[in-house]
């Protein structure tokens, strides 16, 4: 993997089995009794705010009522028809800022929302269907290329297949699932769930996945455009943002997502390189995932440094709480100034400058301090991997900042080429939103192709 630069480091002290215990379900599943109690708390609101806020349009009140009435399969299919990755979304969605924040039970004397995420997981985990719940429509004869087997691409592929189209997914990595497989903290998606979900999704039929196919390297957009009736780009954001400091490529400094991916793929956690003191730069959920996981692996001291205050962190309060519970030190109002290296050229720490808001303006105060560390993990955001859209056709895609511009039907400016998920603007970079993009793009593709076919029939006549 891409954590070669840490290979000189020691390994965790604990054996794999003991380490694995630290990465079991962060939020354990509900049992039947808990699900019954929790589902009975749902008020079955009309025009329910949880449903209105769900980025993937899940009818929350309905699936919870089905759970309560003992119709688990009905609950599960209700979720899946809107969100085929409902199982992973139930685990990774920041429900505390979505459905559970909207729940009316926050307002009354209880002040406790219904545990919607856990109920959704309960429905998906406990469904018992004899076959895939969705049937494919009659074949359209159309063939569509989907680039990226992450949440957006998988969702798009599934919906396209359901609508009667054949799909080929081009995926750069060895496994499907995207961030669910490579980028989410291990304790949020346990038991190989991402792969199980992909297998479930593919059971609809009509979807072929080709791995090791990297856009801009061994696959070119112009070729896909020529070979397929339509192309959907679910590229994600493949590049980690840079600090812009000297020494950024020194051994001991790397992107958090690379370490998380290695951790998630490791068969033996005790063989991972483990810094005894680590710094994590950033304040998003990835920064928290990184800091907490390395702490759980046995790091002595993990410091998360953010240039602004807690209230400005994109990690939710819930996530910040997880960090605190795991003894992650959080240092706010400080920005990286210099990577400190030892004589061998390896990371020995980082020099920070204190920051402040002065007269409404953010800036450094000039005051500096050092934090000693064996490794520094960057988690300051992801951006488009430019090499993936570097062929002549891809270069003509209109961009919004570094993201791909799409209209409200997820059409890029190039006819027949669509995009969705984290790679398009505007995006919240949420799994659930990527699923929604993929689903809606599939409908747009399907309808556009149908219109084209009908138009050509009229011409032929």
């Amino acid at each position, binding site marked *: 993997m891409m954590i070669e630069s840490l290979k000189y480091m020691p390994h965790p002290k604990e054996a794999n089995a003991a380490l694995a215990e630290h990465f079991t379900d962060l939020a354990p599943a509900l049992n039947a009794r808990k699900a019954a109690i929790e589902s009975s708390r749902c008020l079955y609101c009309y025009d329910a*705010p949880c449903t209105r806020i769900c980025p993937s349009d899940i009818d929350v009140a309905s699936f919870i009522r089905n759970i309560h009435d003992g119709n688990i399969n009905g609950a599960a299919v209700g979720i899946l028809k809107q969100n085929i990755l409902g199982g992973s979304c139930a685990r990774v969605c920041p429900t505390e800022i979505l459905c559970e924040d909207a729940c009316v039970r926050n307002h009354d004397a209880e002040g406790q929302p219904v545990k919607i995420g856990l109920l959704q997981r309960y429905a998906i985990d406990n469904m018992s269907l004899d076959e895939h719940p969705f049937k494919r429509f009659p074949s359209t004869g159309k063939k569509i290329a989907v680039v990226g087997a992450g949440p957006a691409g998988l969702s798009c592929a599934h919906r396209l297949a359901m609508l009667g189209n054949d799909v080929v997914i081009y995926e750069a990595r060895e496994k499907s699932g995207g961030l669910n497989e490579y980028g989410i903290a291990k304790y949020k998606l346990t038991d190989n769930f991402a792969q199980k979900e992909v297998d479930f999704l593919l059971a609809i039929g009509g979807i072929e996945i080709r791995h090791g196919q990297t856009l801009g390297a061994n696959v070119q957009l112009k070729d896909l455009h020529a070979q397929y009736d339509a192309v959907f780009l679910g590229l994600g954001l493949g590049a980690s943002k840079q600090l812009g400091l000297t020494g950024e490529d020194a051994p001991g400094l790397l992107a958090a997502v690379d370490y998380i991916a290695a951790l998630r793929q490791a068969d033996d956690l005790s063989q991972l390189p483990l810094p005894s003191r680590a710094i994590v730069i950033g304040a998003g959920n990835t920064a928290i995932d990184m800091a907490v996981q390395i702490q759980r692996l046995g790091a002595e001291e993990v410091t998360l440094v953010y240039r602004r205050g807690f209230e400005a962190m994109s990690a939710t309060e819930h996530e910040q709480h997880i960090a605190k519970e795991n003894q992650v030190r959080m240092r706010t109002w400080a920005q990286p100034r210099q990577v400190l290296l030892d004589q061998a050229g390896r990371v020995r720490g980082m020099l920070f400058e204190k920051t402040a808001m002065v007269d409404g303006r953010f800036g450094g105060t000039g005051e500096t301090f050092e934090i000693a560390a064996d490794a520094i993990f960057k988690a300051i955001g992801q951006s488009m991997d430019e090499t993936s859209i570097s062929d002549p056709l891809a270069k003509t895609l209109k961009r919004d900042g570094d993201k791909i511009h799409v209209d409200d039907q997820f059409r890029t400016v190039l006819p027949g080429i669509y995009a969705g998920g984290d790679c398009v603007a505007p995006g919240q970079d949420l799994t659930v939103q990527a699923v929604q993009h993929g689903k809606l793009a599939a409908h747009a593709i399907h309808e556009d192709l149908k219109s084209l076919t009908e138009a050509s029939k009229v011409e032929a006549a």
Partner: protein
Amino acid sequence: MADLSIEFCGIKSINPFWLASAPPTDKAYNVVRAFEAGWGGVVWKTLGEDPAAVNVSSRYSAHYGKNREVLGFNNIELITDRSLDINLREITQVKKDWPDRVIIVSLMLPCEEKLWADILPLVEATGADGIELNFGCPHGMPERGMGAAVGQVPEYVEMVTRWCKTHSKLPVIVKLTPNITDVRAPARAAKAGGADAVSLINTINSITHLDLDQMVAFPIVGGASTHGGYCGSAVKPIALNMVAEIARDPATKGLPISGIGGIGNWRDAAEFMALGSGCVQVCTAAMLHGFRIVEEMKDGLSRWMDEKGYTSISQFVGKAVPNTTDWKYLNMNYQVIAQINQDDCIKCGRCYVACEDTSHQSIAQLIDAAGVRTYEVIKEECVGCNLCEITCPVQGCITMVPQETGKPYMNWTQDPRNPRAENVKVPETV
């Protein structure tokens, strides 16, 4: 603290809480535990002729609420399955040990005077305070011509009551079945036969739910089931109405009533009393929670009485009866309109959809630019049905506010809109 003691048809009791004739009063062991817990009296589980009844296995089932709370309870047990002799001996001993507690003996026999004449002296000899005639058991026993089979025929009720009054000096309480069109008929018959009191309701014919795999109702007895008798919280509204019907019937006015049916707390008891019950009998709540519930019932009733200034129970028994009337005497000019307290509203929208789908479209859903929902009553459309107030999950958020109409009391018999009005002339032009 208020005095909870009562005198019910001549029987003195330290408090108005008795256990009804049922499994909790089946034998001395249970009854002693009940008295230790503080119950004022028991109606001993129904005695019959020997040989004693035999019960089946699997006897109860329940109708559950949303969170597995038992709303209603169903049983297919018969009367006592122990011999008459054992029961009589135990009753004698318990009464001797607990002289300040009431023991009423429930009886059920075929409609033959000799059988009643023979058993009554034996019951009297135990020292029991009275007898209750089980004319209500709806399952099993009616197939043998007893229980509800008697209670459903007013002539039988009167006849057997009279036998008991003839052959015993003990107060006679007639327990009525609700499985009848008009409960006033057997109550009147009981009174005509000389009954000292009536008690009601016995259980209601019921099937609670089914096993849809085996296609059989609960409780299951070897692959089959039978209807049982329904009791518990769910039957309280039915029981309250039947108690009120008898309390306000001129023919039975003043006849003491022992209220039974879904009583589980002091408030239930106070409601039965307000509608005319001089004492109450409890079974299901004790079967679900044990005898200790009487502690909170006594405490709650006593504190409520203190708060209201009642020093004895007789001061409020029947106090709601005059306010229970026929529909035709309700005030047609009375008007309430729903009012939503926006500070308490949690914006669940239940009032809106209930009114919009099933009532009078009297609630508006307003959506502001930020998507925030507000629900407002359209006063001109509101008929004051209470549906919104009922479906609202926040207690006190929606209130039904009486309106100043400035109009006098006018009931349906006086209403010009009534084509058959008794007291108004319909204008000739109509």
